[in-house]
């Protein structure tokens, strides 16, 4: 049994690591859902992502088929492209969130300032 991408046909070390990691990540998402720190739609999103990773790890041939369908040369390339798209999406979401948070912070700072004016008595 060889290790690495070449072993996609068999059950390689990489696949086992992939599955273990995805299961771990999925359990984290479920735990965070349970303590209400993420919403249902976020749980669904992460379940789809990590479920997808598990599927691909068990049946790597999915990617070969998908690559042929999309006209991309190799399965690994499709994997990288998909990963990049997901990462960009997450980055964008994070960006929007940070901007919103900045605005909230400004609102708070301004409110505190307006409520506490300082004026010295002039001699």
């Amino acid at each position: 049994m060889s290790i690495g991408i070449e072993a996609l046909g068999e059950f390689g070390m990489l696949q086992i690591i992939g599955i273990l990691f995805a299961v771990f990540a999925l359990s984290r998402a479920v735990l965070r859902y349970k303590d209400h720190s993420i919403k249902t739609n976020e749980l669904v999103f992460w379940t789809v992502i990590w479920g997808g990773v598990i599927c691909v790890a068990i049946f790597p041939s999915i990617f070969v088929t998908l690559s042929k369908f999309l006209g991309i040369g190799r399965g690994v390339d499709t994997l990288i492209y998909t990963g990049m798209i997901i990462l960009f999406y997450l980055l964008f979401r994070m960006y929007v969130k940070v901007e919103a948070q900045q605005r909230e912070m400004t609102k708070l700072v301004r409110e505190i300032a307006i409520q506490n004016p300082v004026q010295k008595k002039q001699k």
Partner: protein
Amino acid sequence: MQQKEKKEQQNDSIWIVIAGYNEEKRIGTVILDLKKNNYHNIVVVDDGSKDRTSESAADAGAIVLRHVINRGQGAALKTGMDFAVKNNAEIIVTFDADGQHHAEEIPRLTSPIINGEVDACLGSRFLDTSSNVSWHRKVVLKGGAWIIWLFYGIRLTDSHNGFRAIKKEAVQKLEFKADRMEHASEIVEQIGKQNVRYKEIPVTITYTDYSVQKGQSSLAAFGILWNMIKSKVLK
């Protein structure tokens, strides 16, 4: 005598809003100069300065509002304007903290509003030749004015001039979102959108070594442009 009283009364409804970030050296002089010109309602918004800006401003007799952390000039001016409106200001004048603007020129900006001619006056350093503007700054500011025209359809001779006077009713109409330097363009955008009657007035900007060192570099314009595009796209 009566005229003087009337003038004083008018000045009481005029509020000067100054945003200051690390301006302890100059802010006192600027406030005293405003007071000498009979403006008594002066709000300084200390935008999270690391020096004694708040203390200097309060010592000079201004009302000080303090941003706990730095949020940018736009946010600071907005805080000051809100406070002034809450305290029954009729006209709000925005003024720079570094001594670039001249308190004697405030009536130039306020009288067209008092006369009911317009609702906002925007200072322009290019309507006469009294400002000592360097060539690269001129290119950037003129380019900025051109971009404002392209973005918002308003023709100005100057961009990013912090010397303005706006009527209370107009201030209440404006919706500000930008926290950082692009707020200057945003004010112009909002003036256009809300159909505020405005006019450009020649003002003198005196660049001193201090104000140049404290102020924005001409290169900062690219950052402002980027933020303008961003807010246009993400809106």
